[in-house]
C-alpha cells in the first residue's frame, strides 16, 4: 500500500517553484491533458513562449491576473510508492503566514534557491520556519542549474553555505539536489548534464525519505473528541496524537485523574484493533464507567503531559487588522479543548533573518514571530511542540472577529525566574524548632480515618510535638468551600490539602491529613510534591471493608447515597482506588482507634 507524504514547498516565483511543481506533476504523468491545454491557452494569451507551468498552481483569478500566488494551494500526485500532498506556499505576499500553515502538517520541506543567486535571506527564512514548525526533513533544490552551466563548483558552494546556516536550526535530515525545473533535470529523472551528481532525482528522494521514526510512538496521547453511545456501548472517540494504545493498557484520564483499563480499541466502523498508532481515528472503550468528555485526554499513568495554564510559546502572528499585545484576551484552541487565554507577556520578537531576539519589542504585527507567556483560564494538557506537534500546537482566535490570528508552538511550562520568582527564606529547615512531616490517611467514608487522626494528633501534642489535624470535612468549610464533588473538584480538593500539608510540614509541624482522597493519581501527586521538597510523606490506608463502613455509617451518608440523594458518593457510585504501596495499612482487626493511632506513632518513631 502506498503511504502518504506531506510536502511543503517554499520559494518565490522567481526561483521557479511553481515551474518545479508543474514539472513534477507533468513528468510523473499526473497532469491532465485538459489542465495542460488550459495552461497553454492562457500562456499564449499572455504572449509567453511555451506553457507557463506556474499557471497550474495559481488557482484564483486574482493570482493569475497579477502573476502572484496569494494562498496555500494543495496539489496531489501519486507514484506506485507514495501519494504526495504538496502544500504550495507563496513567496511574495504573507509568506510567513502561509509557509507556517503549509509546514504545520508537512513531513518534508522543499526549499528552492536560484543557482545564480545562491542562499539569499528568503531562503534562510524559509528554512528557519520549517525547523520552527518541526519539519524534520529539509530538501534544498538548487534550481536553474542550466543557467550556471551545470557547474559543480557553484552547487558545492551553495551547499556549504547553506549547511553552515542550517547547523543553527533543528533539522536532522538535510538533502541537496541540483535541478533545472524548466528542463526537467534531476526532477523526476536523473540528469545527463550533471554526471558529477551522485544523488537521487528529487522525486526519487521524496519516494524514499524515511519518515516513520518522526512520529512519537512513545507518549500515549488520545484527546477525546466525542463520546459515542449506542445501546450498552460507550466509546471515547478521538485521533491518536502519540504513542501506541492497546486493549488491556492502564490509562489515566486527565484532568480528572481517574485511572482505568482499556477494554477495546476500535478503528472506523468498529473494527477491533490489536494496537493503534498516530494518526489513526479510534474509539476506545474503558473498563470503568467514568465521567469522560470532549476535551479530556487519555495517557499512560507513568507518562503524562504537562497540566497547567501558565506556559511559554513561540507564536506567529497572522492578522493584518490587529497586533498582538500583552494583556489581550483570545480564544485558544488546543487539541479538542477551547478556552479563554491571555497573552501575559511578550518576551521577545524574533528576527527570522538574523535569529536576533529583540527583547524591547512591545507587540507583534502580521507575519512576525515572538515568544510569549500565555495564561489560560482552564488548564491545558500539553507537551512541548518539539516532542509532539499535536499536543504542542495551538491557534489563537480573536473573540470579536472570530478570525484565526496566531499559530502557537508550546515550548513548555512557564519557566520560573521570569515573572513569578521563588523568594528564598533566611531560615533553614534545620533551624526550625520541630521536624515536620505529613501523615496522609486515606480510606472510604466511615472507615475511621478521622477518629484515628484525632487520636494521633492528641498523642503527638502530648509528646511535645507540633501537630495539626487537617480534616477533609473541616477544609470544605473554609479553604475548599468553593468546591463540589465532581471528579475535577475532588482532584482540586486533594491538591489544595496536599499543598497546605506540605507548608505545615515545611514549617516543622506534623500535618495529620484525614481525607477520602479517592483517586490514586491525586495522592501520587501530593507524594511527588513532598518528595521534591524533601519532606517525609506517610501514606496510611485505613482499609476498612465497604460492608463495615456502610454498617457503621456514622453520619448516615451511605443511607442517603443509596437513596440517590448523594450522587458520586465514594464507595456507592464513585470509585475508590486503594493505594498500591502505602507506608502503612490499618485494618479493623488490628484493634480500636487508639491502638491504630499508636501503630502510626510507632511507625513514625522508627
Amino acid at each position, binding site marked *: *500500500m502506498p*503511504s*502518504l507524504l506531506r510536502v511543503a514547498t517554499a520559494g518565490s516565483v522567481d526561483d521557479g517553484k511553481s515551474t518545479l511543481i508543474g514539472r513534477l506533476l507533468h513528468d510523473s504523468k499526473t497532469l491532465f*491533458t*485538459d*489542465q495542460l491545454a*488550459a495552461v497553454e491557452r*492562457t500562456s499564449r494569451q499572455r504572449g509567453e513562449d511555451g506553457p507557463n507551468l506556474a499557471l*497550474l*498552481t495559481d*488557482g*484564483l*483569478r486574482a493570482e*493569475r491576473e497579477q502573476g502572484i500566488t*496569494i*494562498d*496555500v*494551494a*494543495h*496539489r*496531489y500526485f*501519486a507514484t506506485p510508492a507514495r*501519494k504526495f500532498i504538496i502544500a504550495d506556499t507563496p513567496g511574495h505576499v504573507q509568506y510567513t*503566514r*502561509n509557509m*507556517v*500553515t503549509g509546514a*504545520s*502538517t508537512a513531513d518534508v520541506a522543499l526549499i528552492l534557491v536560484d543557482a545564480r543567486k545562491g542562499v539569499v535571506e528568503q531562503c534562510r527564512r524559509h528554512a528557519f520556519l520549517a525547523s520552527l514548525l518541526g519539519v524534520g526533513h529539509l530538501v534544498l533544490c538548487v534550481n536553474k542549474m542550466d543557467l550556471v552551466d551545470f557547474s559543480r563548483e557553484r552547487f558545492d558552494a551553495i551547499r556549504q553555505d547553506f549547511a553552515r546556516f542550517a547547523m543553527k536550526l533543528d533539522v536532522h535530515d538535510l538533502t541537496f539536489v541540483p535541478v533545472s525545473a524548466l528542463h526537467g533535470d534531476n526532477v523526476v529523472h536523473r540528469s545527463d548534464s550533471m554526471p558529477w551528481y551522485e544523488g537521487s532525482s528529487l522525486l526519487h528522494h521524496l519516494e524514499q525519505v524515511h519518515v*516513520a*521514526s518522526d512520529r512519537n*510512538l512513545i507518549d500515549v496521547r488520545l484527546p477525546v*473528541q*466525542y463520546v*459515542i453511545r*449506542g445501546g450498552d456501548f460507550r466509546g471515547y*472517540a*478521538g*485521533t491518536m496524537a502519540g504513542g*501506541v494504545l492497546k486493549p488491556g493498557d492502564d490509562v489515566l484520564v486527565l484532568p480528572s485523574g481517574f485511572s482505568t483499563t482499556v477494554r477495546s480499541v476500535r478503528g*472506523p*466502523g468498529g473494527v477491533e484493533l490489536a*494496537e*493503534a*498508532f*498516530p*494518526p*489513526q*481515528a479510534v*474509539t476506545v472503550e474503558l473498563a470503568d464507567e467514568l465521567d469522560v468528555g470532549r476535551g479530556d485526554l487519555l495517557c499512560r499513568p507513568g507518562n503524562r503531559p504537562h497540566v497547567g495554564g501558565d506556559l511559554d510559546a513561540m507564536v506567529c502572528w*497572522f492578522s493584518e487588522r490587529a497586533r498582538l499585545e500583552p494583556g489581550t484576551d483570545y*480564544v485558544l*484552541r*488546543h487539541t*479538542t479543548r477551547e478556552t479563554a487565554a491571555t497573552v501575559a507577556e511578550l518576551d521577545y520578537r524574533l528576527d527570522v533573518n538574523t535569529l536576533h531576539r529583540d527583547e524591547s519589542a512591545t507587540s507583534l504585527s502580521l507575519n512576525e514571530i515572538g515568544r510569549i507567556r500565555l495564561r489560560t483560564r482552564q488548564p491545558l494538557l500539553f507537551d512541548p511542540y518539539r516532542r509532539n*506537534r499535536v499536543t504542542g500546537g*495551538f*491557534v489563537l482566535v480573536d473573540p470579536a472577529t*472570530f478570525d484565526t490570528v496566531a*499559530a502557537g508552538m508550546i515550548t513548555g511550562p512557564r519557566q520560573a525566574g521570569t515573572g513569578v520568582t521563588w523568594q528564598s527564606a533566611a531560615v533553614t529547615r534545620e533551624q526550625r524548632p520541630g521536624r515536620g512531616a505529613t501523615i496522609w490517611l486515606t480510606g472510604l467514608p466511615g472507615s475511621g480515618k478521622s477518629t484515628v487522626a484525632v487520636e494521633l494528633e492528641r498523642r503527638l501534642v502530648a509528646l511535645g510535638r507540633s501537630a495539626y489535624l487537617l480534616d477533609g470535612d473541616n477544609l470544605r468549610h473554609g479553604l475548599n468551600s468553593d468546591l463540589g464533588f465532581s471528579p475535577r473538584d475532588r482532584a482540586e480538593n486533594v491538591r489544595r490539602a496536599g499543598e497546605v500539608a506540605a507548608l505545615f510540614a515545611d514549617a516543622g509541624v506534623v500535618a495529620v491529613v484525614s481525607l477520602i482522597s479517592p483517586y490514586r493519581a491525586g495522592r501520587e501527586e501530593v507524594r511527588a510534591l513532598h518528595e521534591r521538597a524533601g519532606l517525609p510523606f506517610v501514606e496510611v490506608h485505613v482499609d476498612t471493608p465497604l460492608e463495615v463502613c456502610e454498617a457503621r455509617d456514622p453520619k448516615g451518608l451511605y443511607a442517603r447515597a443509596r437513596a440517590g440523594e448523594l450522587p458520586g458518593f465514594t464507595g456507592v457510585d464513585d470509585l475508590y482506588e486503594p493505594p498500591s504501596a502505602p507506608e502503612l495499612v490499618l485494618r479493623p482487626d488490628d484493634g480500636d482507634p487508639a491502638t491504630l493511632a499508636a501503630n502510626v506513632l510507632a511507625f513514625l518513631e522508627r
Partner: protein
Amino acid sequence: MTTLEAAADAARDNLTALESEAIHIFREVAGEFDRPVILFSGGKDSTLLLHLAIKAFWPAPVPFPLLHVDTGHNFEEVIDFRDRVVEKYGLRLVVAHVQDWIDDGRLTERPDGTRNPLQTQPLLDTITEHKFDAVFGGGRRDEERARAKERIFSLRNAFGQWEPRRQRPELWNLYNGRHRPGEHVRVFPLSNWTEADVWNYIAREEVDLPSIYYAHQRKVYRRDGMWLTEGPWGGPREDETVEELTVRYRTVGDGSCTGAVESTASTVEDVIAEVQASRLTERGATRADDRLSEAAMEDRKREGYF
C-alpha cells in the same frame, strides 16, 4: 526500521490516513456544531461521505440529517439509489426541489435548460430555513484550481458567499468553526482525496454505488464534445443524432449537462484501471458547467455553490 515503526507505517497507508482525517473532521463537527447536515445527491462523492460518517459514529446512528438539492433533471438510477440508502440506514432526508422555486417565481428557467446554476438559491434558502450551521460537502481539492485553495472548514457569510481572500489559516488538525448567526461553515472531509483515492477506497470498502457509474448501454448524442443523454430536460436538437453506446459516468450532476464517457469498465477494478490511464480530469471530461470560463468554479463558489 523497527518492527513497531513498520506496524505504525502499515496503519498509515494513504487510504487509512485519509479515512482517519475525514473521520476526525466529522467528529470535530459533531462536537462543535448544533445543526450539521450532509449534502447527499446519491453521487459517488456524497455516497463516500455518508459511508465515512457511518463509520465515524459506529455503533451509534449518524447524528446528522441529509440534504439533497434536486434539480428535477435526475438520473432515475441515482434517485432510486438515494432512497434505498436513506431507508437502509434509517436517515432523515431533506429534499429541496428546484422546481418549487421555478414554480413560485423565485427562480427562472435558463434558456439553455441547464439547472446546475439554479441550485445555489434553493440550497441557501434551505440552509437558512433549517438553521443548518455546518454543511458537509464532498468537494475535493484535486477537482479544480479554485477548490485547491479552499479550506476544510470554509466560512460562508450570511449570503452564503465564499471570500477567498478572507480565509482562515488552517494548521495541524485544528479547525476554527466560529461563525455568527446566519453564517454557516461548509465542511469538506474529502479535501485531500483524489479521484483515484475515491475509487480505490470504494473498492477496498466495497461501497455500493448507483449503476450508472459502471458501463451500460445508453442512447446518447454528441454536444460540445460530450455525450449527453436524452431526458425530460430537452435535447437532442434536430442536428444532433442519437446513438446507442456503451458508456459510464465519471461524475453525476444535473442531467442536462453531465456527459457520459465511452467505457467498458463494468467493475470497480475496471474503473480504477481506466482512471489511472485517463489523461483528462473528471470535471474536464464530463461537466459542461465547468467549461464556461477559466474561472467558472471560482465564480460559482463565491456565489455560494457547493
